[in-house]
């Protein structure tokens, strides 16, 4: 019996600490593990006893890459508990700050984490030696996304301006309008990005995934919607716990999420795209078609294209919101605590982020549950690893190892999030 292992002790270009192990015996993949060794940080435990007003700032520290997602899920869950709905321009501003985060996070992933894989560079800085103009373009688009977050939130990492009921301070029409020229440039550059990404060499790989994402009656989803899948799921967010479960596995500090009785599922840009193509703006749809994408796409390596399409959408949406904006009378609506359980799921750049809190009449948090996108995708990532190795088993070890890393990077995993939660190793025999 011949045994061989592919291992990557420290995954690069992901957020946080993870490793891979794939074990091959007699030419068959017998095991594929994505190990998450990022130390656990126990957020759910120390949220107990805190005030409901603090959840947005505290949970944003789960992840420096997508703090807005945590803030949005937290405030929406608390408002759900307290029976408050935030509407009008405050709601629009929440979409706007989320646009900023999608742009910043997606462009970081496209240009700095994922593209180097396709072009054979260790990272973007190495890539910049040969492709300075491309990397520069990426950095400038990303900067436009960060400009939105900074204006709305004070700074792009752990913004300080989000609160229950809205914001501490809302921008003037003129302040928002000052972003317009830069966003117009960046939207063109994003269209250009999709065109460029379409020329990358994509491995031919498709799988019949179950995609899960929010779906809203008339918008591409950010903060609201029903949880739907391409295999018949259609739930309100309050029903999440009845249909999804988390299990602990020995090789990972991150809990694995499953659909009860069904198994792994795929959240993130690809899921959103497959379930919501019809809700994209005409410009984003056109960018997708020009890149050869239809309304459905099952090749996870093409995630880079879909992120690009979502960036085009986010600029379009941001420009729409800015043009329609009228400053609200108050920066926030009052949110008064009551003993209740609140639920929310919003679409973080990497996928659906679920929060549930139970609070008492003073607003003290009694318990908290947070399910980040990466822990939901872990099972699908491991299944992909297994299939990719099976398909390309004859590649030389070094190439196969890289391909495995790339398979994981397709998901833009945020390991810090999932331990709130990662580690690759390929064993051959």
């Amino acid at each position, binding site marked *: 019996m011949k045994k061989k292992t592919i291992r990557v002790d420290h995954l690069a*270009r992901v957020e946080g600490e993870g490793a891979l192990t794939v074990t091959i015996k007699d030419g068959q993949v017998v095991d594929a593990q994505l190990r998450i060794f990022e*130390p656990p940080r126990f957020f759910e*435990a120390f949220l107990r006893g805190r005030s409901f007003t603090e959840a947005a700032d*505290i949970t944003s*520290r789960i992840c420096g890459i997508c703090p807005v997602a945590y803030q949005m899920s937290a405030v929406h869950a608390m408002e759900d508990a307290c029976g408050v709905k935030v509407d009008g321009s405050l709601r629009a501003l929440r979409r706007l700050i989320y646009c900023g985060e999608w742009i910043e996070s997606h462009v970081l992933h496209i240009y700095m984490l994922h593209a180097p894989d396709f072009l054979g560079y260790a990272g973007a*800085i190495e890539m910049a030696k040969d492709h300075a103009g491309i990397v520069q373009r990426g950095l400038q688009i990303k900067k436009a996304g960060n400009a939105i977050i900074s204006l709305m939130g004070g700074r792009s990492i*752990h913004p300080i*301006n989000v609160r229950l009921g809205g914001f501490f301070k809302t921008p003037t029409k003129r302040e928002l309008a000052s972003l317009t020229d830069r966003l117009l440039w960046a939207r063109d550059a994003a269209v250009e990005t999709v065109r460029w990404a379409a020329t990358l060499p994509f491995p031919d790989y498709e799988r019949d995934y179950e995609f899960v994402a929010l779906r809203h009656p008339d918008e591409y989803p950010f903060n609201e919607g029903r949880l739907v899948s391409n295999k018949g799921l259609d739930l309100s967010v309050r029903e999440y716990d009845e249909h999804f479960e988390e299990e*602990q596995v020995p090789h990972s500090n991150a809990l694995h999420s499953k659909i009860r009785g069904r198994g792994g599922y795929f959240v993130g840009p690809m899921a959103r795209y497959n379930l919501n193509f019809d809700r994209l703006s005409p410009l984003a749809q056109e960018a997708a078609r020009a890149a050869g994408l239809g309304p459905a796409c099952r090749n996870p390596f093409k995630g880079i294209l879909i992120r690009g399409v979502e960036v085009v959408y986010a600029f379009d949406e941001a420009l729409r919101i800015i043009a329609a904006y009228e400053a609200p009378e108050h920066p926030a609506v009052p949110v008064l605590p009551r003993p209740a359980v609140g639920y929310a799921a919003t679409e973080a750049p990497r996928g659906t982020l679920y929060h549930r809190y139970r609070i008492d009449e003073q607003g003290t948090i009694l318990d908290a549950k947070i399910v980040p996108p990466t822990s939901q995708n872990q099972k699908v990532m491991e299944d992909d690893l297994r299939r990719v190795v099976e398909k390309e088993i004859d590649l030389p070890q070094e190439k196969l190892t890289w391909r495995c890393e790339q398979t994981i990077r397709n998901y833009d995993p945020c390991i810090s999030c999932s331990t709130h939660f990662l580690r690759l190793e390929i064993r051959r025999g």
Partner: protein
Amino acid sequence: MAVWKFASCDGCQLTLLNCEDELLPIAGEVEIVYFREATRADGKGPYDLSLVDGSITTPRDAAAIQEIRKRSKYLVSIGACATAGGIQALRNFRDVKEFVSMVYATPAYINTLEKSTPIAAHVPVDYELRGCPINKNQLIEVIRAYLQGRKPVIPSHSVCIDCKRKGNICVMVAHGTPCLGPVTHTGCGVLCPSYNRGCYGCFGPMETPNTGSLSEGWRRLGTNEADLLRVFRNFNADAEAFRKESLRHEEKDHPG
């Protein structure tokens, strides 16, 4: 240069990638040989400059930081996690086993230390840069100072002083909003008060803060002991001045 990370949200090392205009010029001046979040490159050192993000929370990490120190000429810890234990230091006030069992069904798989500690608790550190997250201009200053062989010019007075310089209307005096600005280390650019919000101390305590007198001021604005406890026990909970102040409110919160 190498960039390392321990228990953290990745935000402080991301700050480097968020230097959109400065990143490539920096990469032109210093060779980045280890930075997991950005590259597969795996330079084994020794390193002239190591930036360390995150706090030490596992036996494995406690051993790793020793190795990193040995291989680094100059070591800078960045952010509230690396300089004060971070938000995960909230465990230091409780029994971590209780936390593990709250989050994980099989706690036996989880190997974690009882406390979350800053880098300086394990190895000598050449410079500490505060903030949750750090400020990008300060990070660039630290790298520039290193390249020029001088000490970084980073002020250590309070947010309050810069707030007054900036000409903000004081949220505490004008609106009765409690603000930690008078005891918090400056560096953020006075964000919260500029957005009509009280500072919540994300840069940690300034040098010799008068936390007792500030608590008194907050009490006059109607803040109770439980809230005061929470305010100091946050992103820099285990920074000495904040820890001591929080303990005082703990006693008052649970008399006897």
